[in-house]
């Protein structure tokens, strides 16, 4: 069975392709949705096409599925009407699948299940990376604010941190918000931070 993944984020396609190969599928191609990708896709004559719901090129793909004369068999979006939870899971995960006419449901379902799991895993990975980046940025802000307090009020590093933490608790704010406000105030007062 030939599976084409249309994706321009290299990482997500890799995650999905690995999963499919581990599950024993070996005729897998990744096509970025750029330029003449529709012509490439026609030549490949895929049985299954997987695409991220957030990909703006879905309309281009669907148009090709309507007008293509090169595809021997019509391809349509795969939706298992008997399985409503699966439709929801696919949309939540951001997966759309198109399959050739006549491909049995039992053969498509494991592929879609796997794609949903892999898309979700990828989204988690991205969220964790974003969290890590935010944490890094927060730490830099807090360090800058701490340095201002140490310099202007002659505090030790632990005392400067404790002061910000106490202020944050008293005001019901996050410590990074207090730190950012302090930096802004210091900048406005002409302080060199």
């Amino acid at each position, binding site marked *: 069975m030939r599976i084409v993944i249309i994706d321009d984020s290299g990482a997500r396609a890799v995650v999905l392709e690995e999963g499919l190969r581990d599950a024993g599928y070996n005729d897998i191609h990744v096509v970025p949705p750029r*330029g003449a990708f529709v012509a490439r896709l026609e030549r490949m004559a895929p049985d299954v096409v997987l695409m991220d*719901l*957030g*990909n*703006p*090129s*879905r*309309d*281009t*793909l*669907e*148009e090709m599925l*309507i007008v293509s004369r090169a595809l021997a068999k019509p391809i*349509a*979006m795969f*939706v298992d009407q008997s399985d409503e939870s699966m*439709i*929801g899971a696919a*949309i*939540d995960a951001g997966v*759309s699948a198109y399959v050739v006419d006549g491909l049995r449901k039992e053969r498509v379902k494991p592929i879609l299940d796997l794609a949903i799991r892999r898309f979700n895993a990828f989204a988690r990975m991205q969220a964790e990376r974003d969290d890590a980046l935010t944490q890094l940025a927060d730490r830099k802000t807090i360090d800058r604010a701490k340095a201002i307090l140490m310099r202007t009020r002659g505090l030790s590093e632990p005392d400067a941190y404790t002061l910000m933490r106490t202020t944050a608790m008293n005001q019901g704010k996050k410590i990074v918000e207090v730190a950012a406000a302090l930096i802004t105030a210091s900048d406005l007062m002409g302080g060199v931070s």
Partner: protein
Amino acid sequence: MTPIRIAFLGLTDAAVLIAAREKGFAEAQGIALELLRDTSWATLRDRLVYGQVQAGHMLAPLAVAVTLGLSQQSCALSAPYKLNVNGNLLVMAPDFAAALEPNTAVRLTDPLATAHDFANAIGLHHRKPVIGVVHRFSSHALILRYFLGSAGIDPDRDVVLRVLPPSLMVEAMRAGEIDGFTAGEPWGSGAIEAGLAEAVAAGERLWQRGVEKVLAFRTDWMERNPETVDRLLQALAKAAVWCDDPANRGDLAQLLARPDYLDQPADLIERALAGRIVARQGEPPLDLPNFLLFAREATSFPWQSQALWIYSQLVRWHMVEPSAERQARAAAVFRPDIYRRALAGSDAPMPGASMKVEGAVAGPLAIGVPRGAITLGPDGFFDGRAFDPDRIEAYLADLGWARGQA
């Protein structure tokens, strides 16, 4: 508060939905409105059809097509409210447009002459021109086909229509993959500002009050939640009046420009809102006061004759086999009955009829309605034809349509 999720695409004509959320009109009706931005019509359609959102900012022809089973999963949709009329530009690369009338004001004012120039330009072009359209079932594609057809150009033979999402049009122009495109604003103005294209036609001059985006529901959901639907429509009607008020234009442009909405420069967005269109890079703007309408002249009223015009064009271009049953289903996508029920107690203009002959109003026309009078704007097609919803076959015959001929 009743939570409602609505999917939209980042286009200027999503303004009424965005204003309803951001300016408190939804909240005042007890609706917690959540807007979900999509980047393709396919995904917006899927979210609506599979119930992930309760309503969508949808291309009117797509709502008809989904109902008729022409776009993937068949599903009965209903449009009780139009979010705007007009608002699109057809732009072409300067090398193609060089064969057209050089004065852009004249070019936009006389679309019939421009269409004939366009036919000549096709012959002079080094290849079959590739024109980007946002979707097969878009008002843009249907009116472009109509425009080309008026000069004897066969849109399925003489040009290549390539489907691209609006957000990728400008890049495709830059890469030379397309020679022009038609899309909602601010994408046409974006290409003009970048010097990649110039305006060839404005939707407002092709069909003076052209059907564009609708608020589409799944019919079953709409029927089950009448009270919520009514409150939502009341909120949108107020938001639409706010959007149409010139005093709010700058504010609205800033709002739409935000990264979570259009993520485009406010000054580009304001061109469509103000009807001041720069047709070629560096030229002073042209005044097109009806470029994009949200509220006035009963803009939001879903005339069933407009759903039938869409149906007539789907038949004309062999996208659907004509039948009395399909025609009735297409007309029923537009729901003036729901509009009337929801807005009965409000100031919203309330036509008594549900159909009109499209293209028959030549100038501002006051019509009597149950409460006072409302004014309809001119709704002509540039070729002077009128569409009588009771005589679709004669209309198609007049356009040279023949059954089964591809």
